[in-house]
Every structure is written in structure tokens, then in C-alpha cells.
């Protein structure tokens, strides 16, 4: 497990960025198909913040 985390550490923010962006798109599509299916439970802005954060961290790592 330790080695697993060690291996993924360099690209964790990149993966998190991919994951949060994909999840955001999926949630957005679900919201368009059935309004309020997600928004009543979860504010998508929180996910958007995660996208911004992971994206910025990713840029920092790449530099």
C-alpha cells in the first residue's frame, strides 16, 4: 500500500483533476436530464472548487 501511494503521489492532483472534472460533467448531464436530482443534495460549486484546486496544484507540479 505504501509503495502504491508513493508511486501515485507525483500524479495524484492530475488524477484528482480528471476525476473531479469527469464527475462534474456527469452530474451536470444528470441535472440537465432530471433537474434537481443532484442540487438538492449537493452543491456543485464544492466540486467546482475541487476542480480549481486540483487544477492549480497540477499546474504547480508540472512547473
Amino acid at each position, binding site marked *: 500500500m505504501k509503495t502504491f501511494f508513493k508511486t*501515485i503521489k507525483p500524479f495524484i492532483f492530475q488524477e484528482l483533476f480528471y476525476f473531479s472534472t469527469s464527475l462534474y460533467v456527469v452530474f451536470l448531464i*444528470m441535472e440537465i436530464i*432530471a433537474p434537481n436530482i*443532484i442540487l*438538492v*443534495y*449537493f452543491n456543485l460549486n464544492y466540486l467546482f472548487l475541487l476542480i480549481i484546486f486540483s487544477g492549480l496544484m497540477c499546474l504547480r507540479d508540472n512547473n
Partner: protein
Amino acid sequence: MACLLLKKMTPQQKMRLFWLLLIFLFISLFLFLKIIPFGHISYSKNYDSFWQSGKGFIYNFTPVERVSNESDWPRLIGDPVYFSVFTPRTFTEAKLTLSYYSNLADKTPIIEAGVLADKQVWRYDLQPLKNQILDDLKDTWFKVEKDGLVLLQKNKNYESIEQFLTDLENNELKDCVSGITTCLATYNYDPSYQFKLDQVKNTANNISIPLKGNHVLWLYLNDGYWQFQASFVASLEETRNDPLKLILTKDQEIIKEVVLEGEAVDWQAQDLNELSLDGNFSAGLYKLEIKISDDVVIKNIYSSSGLMVFAHKFWPVSYNEKLKVFTDASYLQVKVLDPANLQDISFAGQNFAVTSPYEQFEFKVQGDNLKEIIIEKDDLILENNSIFSLTAEDYFNPLIKKVDRHFSLDSDLNYIIFDYKTPQSDVRDQQLNIASAEFRTKGSYREKGKYNFMLSIPGLKTENGEDDYLAIKEIKIEFTGRSLWQKIFKIGD
């Protein structure tokens, strides 16, 4: 095989697989919460909690002027307040549980909640949350209870509710010389009983006073052929295409219904849109609802025989003559929409001033005798918990007294029957009351996935300057409907 495949994967691939599974899990979770396969879910809004992850299901109270947000919890300071509840699907039943702190005065003893059942006539299916009058009487009168139905008796005449209801149906109540409508009061329960009048006239009734919006008539008919006609005109140029309906009921059962669908109504035509009912009817009491929106005016009402009175509401419009109306209630609620119609009205010989539009004025007098209302200008809404009639001779009141905020304990009153549960106090906080009410939401009005609810504290007024309010701590609504399997196999309603 899967294990081998997993071993061959790089850590990055493993992580992507994990993300994919997580996304799939989220999709499944939200689909589950959308479909609600077991048909039962509960939504709540706790005004104590600071953080909310999403929009929530229960929306804020409106109109905002009737809610004070100065304290930790929203305080209801006016009546009524509305809120809507989003549900991802439809349900057949809802149970609303309200946790509240009460700082209400004695003049506002009742708290009720309702769900919007019919948007056309803006009718809420109201259920009780609190009735202080009944709570007080419960301790002093004799009480018999069965399946949530409670009978209070001034003198202990009945041992069981069944015995009481049988006697009521046969018009043989003990200790009830003055008649059922004066010796019995009800709340949230409509018992079946035989209302009888000795003499009923056989001449035709024609009311040519235009009446606006929905009206409910009580009719007492003779045996034989009877005909009823109502003609309608639009009060606005752009009238909604709502249907026009006549619904005739006897003993709480619909016996005839006539509908003119919205598309079939032609407001531009020279001929009046008419609805009529006729047939052979047995003698007795009938209720007729003229179900129309407030944009429509009943131009003329014709009944071939019998007596005809209006229940609870009378809204004359464009008559342009002085009008006399009769009622036996000790109070009258008056609302004027057009400032041009502000006026002094005479109620039981006393003059009362209606001084501002869109405000409901309440005028009180003494006694249960028949009172005359004289209005100089029409287009005003007259309301009370009793009957309105255009002549004193035709006046009859088949309504059993309701234990509402205008209720007074008369000497003739011996029984009260009701379906209501006293709110419970919270175990940890004695000041906190928890009351619940159940509603049938099947067929209730639902717009954009939302049910509309109302909290009503009759008599609570924002503008009276008093510090009376109802502070809401939590609203919880449990919805029950068909499960997925019932829906697939078409079981249940």
C-alpha cells in the same frame, strides 16, 4: 481472472479504475434517490443547522413579510405562510411533523397545515396541528376515544363513539332538544347526519346578481324533478382556460358532475357559457359546488325549486346596486380589491369601515340570530364560517358548528366530536412542541416537482404590533408512495 488483471495494472490504471467505480457509485446513489424504489422517504429542514450541502428539499417560507428572521429560528408573524417541497417523484401520502416554540396569544388558538389540493380554486387540504380550545376542553369534559376520533360530552350520555354516531345519523341525540346544529360541534371531522326542514317552497329561484369565482351552495330540494342552470362570463380579457364545473354531492358523495372543459369555453362568443343540471331527486340536503377560477363571473343562477343558500363565501360583482345579504355568524370577514369600492358596510345594524384594499377586515357583533349585511358597492368578498342568503325567508343553516377561533361555548352545546391529536412536548425541552399532520398527496397540485404546503394560524396578523409568533425549529416530511415493484406490476394506487 479479475485478480490477475488487477495485478497486471499500473498504479495509475488502478487509480482510474477506482475513480470510475466511484463515479458509477455516485450515479447509482443519485438514481436510487431519484427513483426511491421502496416508496418511502423523509425530508427535513432543521433551522438550527448552520451548514447545508445542497439546496435542500424544503424551500423558504413566503411571503417574506409574514416571517421574521431576527432570531435563530424563523418566526411566523402573519397568516398564512407557504412553503414548497421538492420531491424527485410523486407520492400518495405525506406526514408533516413540525417542531415549534409557541408564543401565540389566546386569540390565535389554532395551528393548521395544508397541502395545495386544487389550484383552480386555491384550495388547501387543511389538517390540524394544534387546537388550544379542544386541549382545554379535553380536561374538563367527559372523553370517549376510538381510532383517533374523540367525543367530548358535557354530560356523560354515551359510553362509545359508535353509539353516538348511530344516534346522530338517526337524529336521536340525547340531550339535544335544540337541534343537532346547535348542540354539536365538530373539528376536522364531518359526521353524517340527516338535516330536515319542515316546509320547502316549490317556486323557482333566480339569482341575477353576478358572483365572482368559486361558490358553494347548499340546496334543500323537494321530491321530484329539479333543474339548475348557471351562466358564466369572463371578468378579464385574458381569462385562463380553466374548466367550469358543477359538482353536486349528497351525504359527502358526488352524485352528479357537469364539466365544460377549458378548451370548449368560448369567452368571445355573444352567447353565455352555460352549465345545467337536472333530473329527479329525492327530498333532502344537497351541496353544489360551482367550481370556477376567480377570473370567471357567474352571471346568473337558476334553480327550479327548493331553497338555496351560499356557504362561507359570497362575492358579488358588477351589480351596481345596494345589496342586502343575511347571515347568522357573529363575525364577518370583508376584503375589497379595488380602492374604488372602499366603503362603510352595515352588519347587524352596526357600521364598519373597510378602509384599505387587499386587507381582510374582521367585524364582530353579538349573538347567533339572523343578521343583515348591507353593502353600498359590490365587488367585495364576504366570508365567515356560516351561510349567506339573499333573503331572510329562504335562510337555513345546515352546517354543524366548527371549533374554530370564533368558537364560543354556548349553553346548548353538549357534544364535540373531532379527529385531532394534541402536540407532544419534547422530552429534553418542554417548551418545544412537536405536532404532526397527515395528508393525501395523490392528485395534489404539483408544479416543477414541488408540492405546495401552507401553515395557517388564523387570526395572526403582522400589522397588529403584538409580539405573538410561532418559531419553527424543524420541519420534517415523510412521503409514502408506490414502490418500484408496485409500479412495475401495477399494484396499489
